[in-house]
């Protein structure tokens, strides 16, 4: 038999890296973006320049932003001036706002999640690779995260392209995962054992009132807009495969979760005050880098309603 890949080597990465369609910005043909687009890496992520999110953007611009989100998986905006109403107005152009079941929003508005790190905090929200809120039956399709105050250095965020994670699996592994489902739970991130500093987020329930939220989702999901398949397991929420024990599931889950964020699938974003990240939660994972940093970090997150993964 011909060995095209060493047994432990990953499948080659297909091109183009991101969306199924020929990328508008890079292919030369077709309509150009109505704003400047600067990709971060070959895997995913792009900065969209010359957009003032505080303004009432026309439908064509919103449609182009949505197309960029689908193509790049995560898009970034710099130098924005958003308060809560403006961030909500922008986010609502892409769908209904999602209200998190387990984190109390700002007093004034349950859709707003303040993600605050204080000097001295040792644990932070999202410090392991994850997609957002997969414990619910219909996880949010995306998030819009706004940096109000960030340290001069540290506190970056990384994203990983889960289309690539799926595409680079072997045909045998793809066949094995076909039709398989896994249980996702918030027990690791929000359960009583989890000792999040009180300043990070206000839990809706106290520990003794905490009840697990869990849902079964396909291990490989099909993106409802691009039609592409993406790996949908992560270290933070995926507990076991359907009808298998945790012990039985662990070796393969460990392999898939480690594979999911290989460096060549990722991008890393350095925040400045006024930066915005808008990610597609259906085909990416992300991690908040918990590097030692003495300063405050204040972020404001809104999420958009998603559909049932299939």
């Amino acid at each position, binding site marked *: 038999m011909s060995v095209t890949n060493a047994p432990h080597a990953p499948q080659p990465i297909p091109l183009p890296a991101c969306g199924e369609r020929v990328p508008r910005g890079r292919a030369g043909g077709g309509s150009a973006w109505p704003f400047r687009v600067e990709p971060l890496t070959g895997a995913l992520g792009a900065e969209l320049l010359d957009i*003032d999110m*505080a303004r009432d953007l026309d439908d064509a611009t919103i449609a182009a932003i949505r197309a960029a989100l689908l193509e790049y998986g995560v898009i970034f905006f710099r*130098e924005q*001036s*958003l*308060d*809560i*109403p*403006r*961030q909500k107005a922008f986010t609502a152009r892409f769908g209904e706002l999602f209200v998190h079941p387990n984190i109390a929003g700002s*007093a*004034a508005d349950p859709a707003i999640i303040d993600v605050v790190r204080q000097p001295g905090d040792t644990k932070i929200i999202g410090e392991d690779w994850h997609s957002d809120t997969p414990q619910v039956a219909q996880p949010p399709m995306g998030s819009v995260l*706004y*940096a*109000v*105050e*960030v340290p001069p250095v540290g506190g970056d965020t990384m994203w990983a392209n889960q289309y690539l994670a799926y595409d680079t699996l072997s045909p045998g592994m793809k066949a094995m995962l076909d039709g398989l489902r896994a249980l996702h739970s918030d027990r690791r991130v929000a359960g009583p054992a989890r000792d999040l500093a009180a300043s990070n987020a206000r839990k809706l329930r106290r520990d003794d009132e905490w009840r697990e939220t869990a849902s079964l989702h396909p291990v490989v999901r099909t993106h409802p807009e691009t039609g592409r398949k993406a790996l949908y397991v992560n270290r933070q929420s995926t507990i076991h495969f359907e009808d298998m024990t945790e012990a039985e599931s662990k070796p393969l889950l460990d392999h898939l979760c480690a594979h999911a964020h290989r460096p060549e699938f990722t991008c890393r974003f350095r925040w400045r*005050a*006024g930066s915005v990240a808008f990610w597609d939660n259906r085909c990416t994972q992300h991690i908040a880098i918990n590097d030692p940093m003495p300063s405050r970090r*204040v972020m*404001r997150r809104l999420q958009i309603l998603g559909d049932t993964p299939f």
Partner: protein
Amino acid sequence: MTITITPMEPHRPDFAGLVSNIDLRKPLRDPERDAIEAGMDRYAVLVFRGQDITNEQQLAFSRCFGELEPAYSVPGDNVQVGRIPSEINDVSNLDRHNKPLPRDDRQRLFQLGNLLWHSDSSYKPVPAKYSMLLARAIPDRGGDTQFADMRAAWDTLDRETQELVRNMICEHSRLFSRGELGFSFSAEEQVKFAPVQQRLVRRHPVTGRLSLYLSSHGGAIVGWPLPEARALLRELTEHATQRERVYTHKWRPFDMVMWDNRVTMHRGKRYPADQPRDIRRTTVMDAAPTLQQAA
């Protein structure tokens, strides 16, 4: 009745709010404090009507929002000293016997700087966050206070100018604001009033919105030739104070007006010099120098 805050003017939904159902003679409860802070974040200027409160009650209310600035000292004979407690800025035109100051009184003339658009204490390294101004006696005409929305001023700047000013650092001093009115200063005052540096563009730590930080105290831009800096600061000030971005407050006795100096400028309007105007200000300090704040 619970505290409610509504726009002062229907066509301006996020600048200048009217606070109802609150009695400032009583200690402020936490939910009221939170509602007022949220209202300040949204409206930047809040009006409380009919608050016949004592100096002590004004001080107690103000302390709920942070550390107070000591009152400024006006160079001169200090004929006002002793009229009211020292943590309250006397913005009146009265001497300690509650008589209007003579027209040529240096203290009165110095205070005429309030007629120029400014942000309180922008000449201090740590400038003012909130100011609270209570009117006890007002003249029968004139004396309005006007507020300019500096968030809107940023939003409406053209992009090229936004980029030009985004990281500018200005120098602020009363030498500039009073110099504009023709004051000259002793050698001692020139040392005492040495300029401090402030960012020209600030980001509000809670809302995350950008705003222009201008003031008549601002008279130089670091790295810029002086005449060019003065001309630009004047242009920006004219842009910021166009009528559609200005709220004019017509005082009634026992109005208290509270504003966020980080995102507004204000000025007093002229009034007859022989009429008593008894207006008292408390001032909450900001957390840090603007150069140390994220922007």
